[in-house]
């Protein structure tokens, strides 16, 4: 086994069991997964196979019931809310299927938000947000509100928000799920480009085979475990 620091994400025998009343619903059943630094990984699988749960646990939004999670060499198991939030703020970017932009804020303000949380002064924050918008090709839309933009454009703003803080890891949950194939390809090109030029580790949960084909590796989940995996580019 390679040393931990070669991996951006290590999930070791991770279990996630939801309890409703006395009934247990296991979402992950001893899942083990390692994502190399700079890798672009697609996670596929039928609904209910634990894809989203995996992403939430890797993104520190959720805690495993059992098992170890190591992000960028840090074992996050025992960390408190404030440490986990700091890791999310500095090391992880999220992209969601439904974009999840805040509609009352401009594209620029939405993109700046992670830096505001980090306490970055306004001028630097604006410059970084404009640069992030430039990377997704939306520099001219900085002043627009999300609802003035198309779905594809909104998702590009969301990607800019995800990468504005220069995180080591970008986690995308069905990023093309709400988009037509043309826009889906634009999004996936942008993500691929970020992965290649910035070296950001990228994990994409997707149903879309065209999206998955563009990644380095595809992992298929079933019943909360890795069922199979295919390496496309070494």
């Amino acid at each position: 086994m390679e040393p931990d620091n070669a991996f951006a994400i290590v999930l070791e025998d991770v279990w996630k069991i939801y309890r409703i009343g006395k009934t247990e619903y296991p979402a992950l059943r001893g899942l083990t997964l390692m994502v190399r630094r700079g890798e672009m990984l697609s996670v596929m699988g039928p609904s209910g196979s634990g894809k989203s749960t995996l992403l939430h646990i890797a993104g520190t939004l959720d805690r495993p019931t059992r098992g170890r999670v190591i992000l960028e060499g840090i074992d996050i198991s025992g960390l408190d809310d404030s440490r986990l939030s700091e890791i999310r703020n500095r090391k992880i970017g999220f992209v969601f299927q439904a974009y999840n932009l805040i509609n009352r804020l401009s594209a620029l303000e939405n993109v700046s938000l992670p830096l505001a949380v980090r306490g970055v002064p306004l001028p630097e924050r604006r410059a970084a947000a404009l640069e992030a918008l430039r990377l997704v090709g939306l520099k001219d839309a900085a002043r627009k509100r999300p609802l003035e933009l198309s779905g594809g454009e909104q998702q590009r703003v969301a990607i800019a928000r995800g990468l504005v803080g220069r995180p080591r890891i970008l986690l995308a949950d069905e990023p093309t799920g709400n988009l037509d194939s043309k826009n889906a390809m634009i999004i996936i090109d942008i993500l691929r480009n970020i992965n290649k030029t910035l070296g950001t580790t990228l994990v994409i949960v997707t149903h879309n085979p065209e999206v998955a084909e563009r990644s380095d590796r595809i992992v298929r989940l079933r019943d909360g475990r890795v069922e199979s995996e295919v390496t496309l580019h070494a």
Partner: protein
Amino acid sequence: MGSTPTPGGVNVVNLIDTLRYALSALRERRGRSILTILGIAVGSGLIISLVSLGEGINTVVTDRLMMLGANNIIVLPAQGSNIQFSDADVQKITRIPGVTVVAPFYLAVAEFQVGGTRVSGRVLGIDPMQLQIIFPGIKILEGDSPTPTSSTQIGVGYKVAFPPAAVTTSRLYVGQPLTIMASTAEGLKTTSFTVTGIYDKFGASVFFDADTAVVMPLPAARRLLGEMRYQAILVNTERVDLVEYIISELEGLYGRNVTVISPSTILSTVRSIIASFTIFLGIIASVSLFVAGLGIMNTMIMSVMERTREIGVLRSIGMTRRDVLFTFLFEAMLTGLIGGLIGVGVGVGLSLGFGNYAGNFFRFGPQFEPIPIRSVITPELLMGTLLFAVLVGSVSGLYPARRAALIDPVKALKTE
């Protein structure tokens, strides 16, 4: 926005970001925000206007009572008692330690013939040398004070000498005769006197309006009223703190035959009544502010529910639970602050307007002029009310903000 957990664990809160974020959230739900803010504004406006009005009434009553002299005591025959004061009573009271001056006096309702019309007022029969005790600081405007032993000389109040233009255009001059009609023990009597002095404007105290009175020496009053017994005795004491002791001495001398009135004892009673009244008004106003606080809570709970997904986003970009708590708490506090500021403005306006309006009804009796009430608006009241509004906002925001902070980010992000 929130804060940065630094390695040392100290949160550097960027208040300006949080303020801008809260303002944008309030603007997004403009209608609801305005209504909520209005509730707070009404509550704090009520506190300011009602409390300042109460304070204003307190000040007016205090001033008027103090015109009568805080260290004075008035001894009157009790209702139903047939006691009649004579010079012997004056001697007796003079012997009480602490008493400086004892001034017996007559008081009667009368009409004065000025020009072609009759002006109504009161006759105060008292030693003119002792008038300063009843009306401290009263000045002669024209002429001289009547001689204490005279039975014909009188001094007239300002409004008797210069009646309002609506009554008559003529005025009285020093040296002129004045015909006075008074109801006496022997029926309605008309007697003529000579004006030797005109008093300057003094104003109304609780018992007498100096400006509508005619002051005459005791012999002159006896000639007018045909009465040998004094109607009341004014007792001036050395110090205010002796008033209570001397009152008890007087009650010891006369028992239930007399009524003893003193401005300072009336004042403490009146003041405590006004104070309870003011507190009562303040409590009512505070209740309305609390209700407005429930409005904030309601609005914030709805807002938290509607913004669940936003909370999920905020958590996903690195906000801690405490940051989320603070963000929503700040929004509630801001609602209280804005409402409080508007309320302070409205309250000040309202209390000034209301004060003038109420002033027209506030008088001691029909023969007195209405007394303008000036609302007393202190910086303490304004600051206190503003702080109270902010506090109500913050406390109301506590529960919704806690709810927001405890929302599971995973569930929040799945919310539609």
